[in-house]
């Protein structure tokens, strides 16, 4: 099983890197771009556990390690 986890800043937290990318896109003429948020992607391979347990593990790992809950949120899905 493989899970993909997306970690990004909470909406309430300023994302200086996303802002910079947005400004660059505006400079290039992409006026339709209203906002950019930058995040991180993790792909975790799991084995020897049921799909249900794997789901629990991924959520736990994301909460405890991959994301800092003070500033970040996460979302994840199984890839296979």
């Amino acid at each position: 099983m493989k899970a993909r986890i997306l970690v990004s800043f909470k909406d309430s937290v300023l994302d200086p890197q996303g802002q910079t990318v947005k400004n660059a896109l505006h400079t290039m003429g992409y006026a339709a771009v209203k906002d950019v948020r930058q995040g991180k992607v993790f792909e975790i391979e799991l084995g020897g556990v049921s799909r249900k347990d794997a789901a629990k593990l991924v959520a736990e790992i994301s909460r405890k390690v991959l994301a800092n809950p003070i500033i970040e949120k996460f979302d994840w899905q199984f890839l296979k």
Partner: protein
Amino acid sequence: MRFGVVQFPGSNCDLDTFHVLRDVAKQDTVLLWHKDHDLQEADCVVLPGGFSYGDYLRSGAIARFSPLMQEVRAFARRGGLVLGICNGFQILLELGLLPGAMIRNKDLKFLCRHVHVRVENDRTPFTRAGRKGQVLTIPIAHFDGNYYAPPRTLAALERDRRVVFRYCGPDGELSDEANVNGSLNAIAGIINEGGNVMGLMPHPERASEALLGSVDGRLVFESLVRSFAPRRTRQPPPASAGKVRHDR
């Protein structure tokens, strides 16, 4: 007084801090290895600056899981003195011994230069050799020093006077320009509820010898030595001295 300076893979201010504590502050100082479980009877644990574990994942995010940090957490909760400088501050945030988090500097630049910081609270073991409003010149060197905390946490920090240092101009004035990394409320250093754990982004160990352009950083180390002196002569602490004092 005995200081213990923790070494992680990627620490790079460990030996500078060790040098200042031993040779400038003239204190008994030992190096502590991140994989050990032994604080070697240190009275104050110092987490030095650097890039522990390459700053992978987030600054300080991996170092918090090291074996020694579990001892440091227990030590802090018993009321032990812990000082986190720069990356050490980031580790304390990740560990939950201090509230909040660090995000990238507002202009996305690594900032390495002298800045002015104002002493906001001189009634801590880390600042009692100074006075409120005093302006110090101390270097910073970081990429992720933009302090963030949710509104409620921030309000509590201000209310309880737990903001210890703020970025300011040469005369102590606050401005967006002086707040070099964009920290909320220009926060450069904070202390925990128990008053025994402090983190700051500036590097006092790089401003402790005249040869390096400033001796203002000595204030932190002198304060610690001064705070510790009366403790040592006190009667043995009552059983309740081990009471848990946590931050969250």
